[in-house]
């Protein structure tokens, strides 16, 4: 049952990632694209944790954590770029 | 006392960081605690210049209460949003802007409020007004912006005011 649940979750997040990619490529404004990228990053974190759960391994944790921490930084950087041009001012 | 303040410029942060370290180490041990504590002392000391003014939390029970309220709201309201997204026709939705006049003055409090608004589904805090007296919120689907405003003020801002100010 847990196996089914994990696969279900895999499917959901996998589909989510593909939708994010679709959004990134088709969106008309960069803002939405950045949003989609950010969402993709978060979905990826979910996938990594899921996979770790699935395989019973911890090696995905650090990467997931770093991604959670740093993905934000790049999103902010993109947004600041669009708002101010200069991201460090 | 002054010396102690200098060494522990931010005891709450020290505790938070030690906790973070223990989470990171993921296996409670004396070594981790000692090490985490050492870093928990060093890092606030190093980063001191970056937080010139810091808030004081006044009402710890209220902090707990607030967290529980928010968690609950997140869970419940997410379902609502999921319904809107999955089942509601986009044309039927009524997105709306809401202006929330703020009584909060502390940046930390405002931040927590804004964060809460964003994390609770259906609303996203979008901007502060030019002097920070109002918060602009976007609603995914509401026919009554004033109700949203009142609920936010009632449910969150009131509690935050007690915690921070």
């Amino acid at each position, binding site marked *: 049952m847990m196996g089914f649940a994990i696969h279900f979750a895999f499917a959901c997040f996998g589909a989510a990632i593909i939708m994010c990619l679709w959004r990134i490529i088709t969106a008309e404004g960069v803002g939405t694209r950045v949003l989609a990228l950010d969402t993709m990053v978060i979905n990826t974190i979910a996938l990594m944790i899921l996979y770790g759960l699935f395989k019973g391994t911890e090696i995905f944790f650090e990467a997931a954590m770093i991604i959670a921490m740093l993905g934000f930084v790049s999103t902010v950087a993109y*947004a600041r770029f669009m708002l101010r041009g200069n991201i460090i001012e | 006392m002054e010396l102690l303040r200098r060494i522990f410029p931010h005891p709450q942060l020290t505790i938070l960081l030690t906790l973070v370290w223990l989470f990171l180490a993921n296996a409670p041990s004396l070594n981790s605690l000692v090490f985490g504590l050492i870093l928990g002392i060093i890092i606030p000391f190093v980063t001191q210049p970056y937080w010139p003014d810091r808030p004081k939390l006044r009402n710890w029970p209220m902090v707990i209460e607030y967290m529980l309220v928010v968690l609950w709201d997140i869970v419940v309201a997410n379902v609502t949003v999921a319904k809107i997204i*999955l089942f509601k026709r986009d044309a039927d939705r009524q997105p709306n802007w809401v202006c929330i006049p703020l009584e909060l003055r502390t940046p930390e409090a405002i931040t927590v409020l804004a964060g809460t608004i964003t994390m609770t589904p259906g609303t996203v805090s979008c901007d502060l007004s030019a002097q920070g007296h109002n918060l602009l919120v976007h609603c995914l689907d509401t026919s009554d912006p004033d109700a949203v405003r009142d609920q936010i003020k009632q449910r969150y801002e009131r509690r935050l005011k007690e915690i921070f100010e």
Partner: protein
Amino acid sequence: MEFIFELLIAFFLIVSGIFGFVGSFGMIKLKDPMSRLHAPTKATTLGVGGVLLASICHSVLIEGHLSLHELLITLFLFLTAPITALFIAKWHIHRHEKPEDLPDAGEDELWATHAVEQVEDVPDHSAN
């Protein structure tokens, strides 16, 4: 007992899967950019939160060792998601909303994003 634990974990996983899906699906389905912002910022965050919760439960309940480091990821996401949303909203306001389209900002007159020093610098509303 184990079955109940597994059931619990499975529940978390399925719920989180749904929310993860909804978060991204909303981004596709919702038409106006501001509304799109809603879906991922919370549905996805909650989705991930569910997975993390499942993971914690798994290690505590099934493997029998306390593993709370997933909480850190949750912490980061909860700390950062509002900021992400805020910036994207600001981008939208900056690019696509005129001051008069927004609710009145009260005594402050303008929302911060529009409050630029020079009047002529008020954003033009070209694409991007």
